[in-house]
């Protein structure tokens, strides 16, 4: 490796660090905190995944399948179903994808990739993690409190107001989101400060790996979107408990105002989920095509542009609230504009692969899966961005299929790509290759069988968030649930792979991927030592690191 001489003297580092529970509870080390985030994300994935599996079990056949509360208690069961839908969304968004991408890979690899010894504020990093862990506990407590919050992740009043959710469940959910939001804002401030101030000499911002760019843009989105959610949630909390009337028509408020505030946060939020995935896929595609990424600056500024425009398209979630024709025309065009920078990214990934010396290792397989799924969801997204079509498709399974493809499943594929790409660096052992390939194919087939038929159910008019449906939706729902079985089995296989990797994986060298892997994390040994880059690597004469 040409970059070998820049490696930190981590090997003969005095690797002294606190041990036992203190090492984790009081951790200020970016790698340990990153590991904790990844573990939290895995726990979240089990809970959130179990919830979605229960949803699919219920929807496998028409009628009510699993009324846990006995005959005559259908209302309680429907509320439980709504709690499952709500919990699945919140957990997957706030406690699986965000911790894995920002907290896990971001903490682990941003300092390594820019040649910094740690994050800018190590202790703030610690509190970010523990706030998030507390938020998860609070959310689970909410789910088991007096019927739980059955509001959907959008928490629209009046359903979420005291009249229809009188118990403390929604209040606990709101407090949980407050904690998660505070955690994200602190994490974002930490990331931005680290990336702005702590790059190694010569690592200019235009030489920074695209993963760091993606985390930088995501951090800015978090910084500006999360406080808006916090403000809206506070208003909802005081409406529920202290007699204010922000969203109460009887007091002069307007429930639609909540939708504006929520989606001003909610739309950037979906980019918060997918942008780090763009970064991971860029690294992986470049590494396994053995070429620098095609159009580096275009890729970086496409993400910046997506971030900006993401704040100006929120009302495309609200076409059915009675916006006038001009307002809809604006939001349609602004939403369609986002297809341009995302198209730039897709074509640049393809152009990177074009003529490259591609090796389809498991991370590359997941990156290609990501591109396929993201394009699928992007195409339905362009369709849904049109107000005229959306009024027909609003709140149908077509929308469910769309956002699971474009954001949820694509995001999970990016997470798996990142996991297989970096696990050797994180734990020093390589994943079992054959099992990982089986994991990819079973997961890829599983999610497509799961979500593709939902386009058909949606076009036939099947609504979201309803546990029962007429018989004419039965066929594709059955197929979809079969997909859920395959996906669940594949997810369990992934956890088996994690265990096999940690217990019996073969040892990996500093750079297991060959000449394609040019970023700084491959210059330190595997697993990365506790302290890295105490002497900053000099990047002055190096190429852009993409």
């Amino acid at each position, binding site marked *: 490796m040409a970059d070998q001489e820049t490696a930190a003297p981590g090997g003969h580092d005095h690797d002294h660090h606190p041990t036992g529970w203190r090492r984790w509870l009081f951790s200020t080390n970016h790698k340990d905190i990153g590991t904790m985030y990844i573990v939290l994300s895995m726990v979240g994935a089990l809970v959130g995944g179990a919830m979605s599996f229960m949803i699919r079990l219920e929807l496998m056949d028409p009628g009510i399948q699993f009324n846990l509360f006995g005959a005559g208690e259908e209302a309680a069961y429907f509320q439980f179903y709504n709690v499952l839908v709500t919990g699945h969304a919140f957990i997957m968004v706030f406690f699986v994808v965000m911790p894995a991408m920002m907290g896990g890979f971001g903490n682990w690899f941003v300092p390594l990739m820019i040649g910094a010894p740690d994050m800018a504020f190590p202790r703030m990093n610690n509190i970010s993690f523990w706030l998030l862990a507390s938020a998860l506990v609070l959310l689970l407590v909410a789910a088991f409190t007096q019927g739980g919050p059955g509001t959907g992740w959008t928490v629209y009043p009046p359903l979420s107001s005291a009249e229809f959710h009188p118990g403390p469940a929604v209040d606990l959910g709101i407090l949980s989101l407050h904690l998660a939001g505070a955690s994200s804002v602190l994490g974002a401030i930490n990331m931005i400060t680290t990336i702005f101030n702590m790059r190694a000499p010569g690592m200019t911002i235009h030489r920074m790996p695209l993963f760091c760019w993606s985390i930088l843009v995501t951090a800015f989105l978090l910084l500006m979107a999360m406080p808006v959610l916090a*403000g809206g949630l506070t208003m909802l909390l005081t409406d529920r408990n202290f007699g204010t009337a922000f969203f109460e*028509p009887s007091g002069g408020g307007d429930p639609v105002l909540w939708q504006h505030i929520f989606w001003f946060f909610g739309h950037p939020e979906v980019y918060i989920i997918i942008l780090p995935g763009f970064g991971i896929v860029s690294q992986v595609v470049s590494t396994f095509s053995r070429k620098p990424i095609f159009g580096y600056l275009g890729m970086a500024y496409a993400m910046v542009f997506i971030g900006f425009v993401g704040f100006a398209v929120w009302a495309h979630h609200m076409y059915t609230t009675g916006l006038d024709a001009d307002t809809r025309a604006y939001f349609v065009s602004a939403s369609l504009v986002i297809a341009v920078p995302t198209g730039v990214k897709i074509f640049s990934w393809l152009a990177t692969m074009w003529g490259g010396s591609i090796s389809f290792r498991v991370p590359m397989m997941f990156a290609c899966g990501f591109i396929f799924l993201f394009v699928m969801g992007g195409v339905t997204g362009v369709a849904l961005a049109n107000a005229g079509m959306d009024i027909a498709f609003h709140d149908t399974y077509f929308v469910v299929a769309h956002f699971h493809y474009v954001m949820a499943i694509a995001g999970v594929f990016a997470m798996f790509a990142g996991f297989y790409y970096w696990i050797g660096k994180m734990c020093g052992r390589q994943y079992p290759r054959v099992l990982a390939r089986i994991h990819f194919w079973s997961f890829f087939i599983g999610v497509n069988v799961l979500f593709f038929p939902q386009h058909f159910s949606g076009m036939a008019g099947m609504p979201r968030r309803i546990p029962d449906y007429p018989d004419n939706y039965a066929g594709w729902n059955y197929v979809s649930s079969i997909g859920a079985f395959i996906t669940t089995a594949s997810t369990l296989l992934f956890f088996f792979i994690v265990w096999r990797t940690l217990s019996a994986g073969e040892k990996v060298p500093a750079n297991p991927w060959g000449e394609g892997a040019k970023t700084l994390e491959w210059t330190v040994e595997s697993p990365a030592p506790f302290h890295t880059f105490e002497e900053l690597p000099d990047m002055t004469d190096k190429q852009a690191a993409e």
Partner: protein
Amino acid sequence: MAPMRTDNRKKNRLTAMVLFTVAGGMVGLAFAAVPLYKLFCQVTGFGGTPKIAAQPPAAAPSGRTITVRFDANANPALPWRFLPEKTQVTVRAGEPALAFYRATNLSDAPLTGTATFNVTPFKAGEYFSKIDCFCFTEQHLAAGEEVAMGVRFFVDPGIFTDPNTQDVTTITLSYTFFPAAGGDGKEGEKPQQAKASAPAPVPVAGRPVKG
């Protein structure tokens, strides 16, 4: 190594301060959205918010007419019967008109109500002006009392020239009566809003909540 770290520390603190300010500013903006949204609704008629006019229009009324229909709802928490006297009238655009609603307190206690209102289609809100309305203030009804309540309004003739609203031939004016916040407190069914600091009925579109 050491001098560089202290240098970084200062720079990091400054960056973090700026970023915390941005986050704080965004919280502020979220709350600023509330009055801004109200203002926006009033100015643009967004969401079917009718305009408030002090005077009838000076210009001569247009020759064209438009039908105005009247809708009345009472929130279940307020035991009132609330009905329009006429279900619709046809008015000349630009000419003030007067319509009456009739409210009866069905309970055996005095009750105070306040009405939210809007017009549909929403896009007509910009051209529908109220000069005087019972919904501008709270209404007190003694036990069993029945009152007639008036609304004076006009439709701006501009509705016929705006390409967005040329197709409108009928405007529906809708009211929903709620127990007044901070009123008698007798209602009791909606304890959450009993303690609100009695906002004067704000001229903002509230969506009628039925049932």
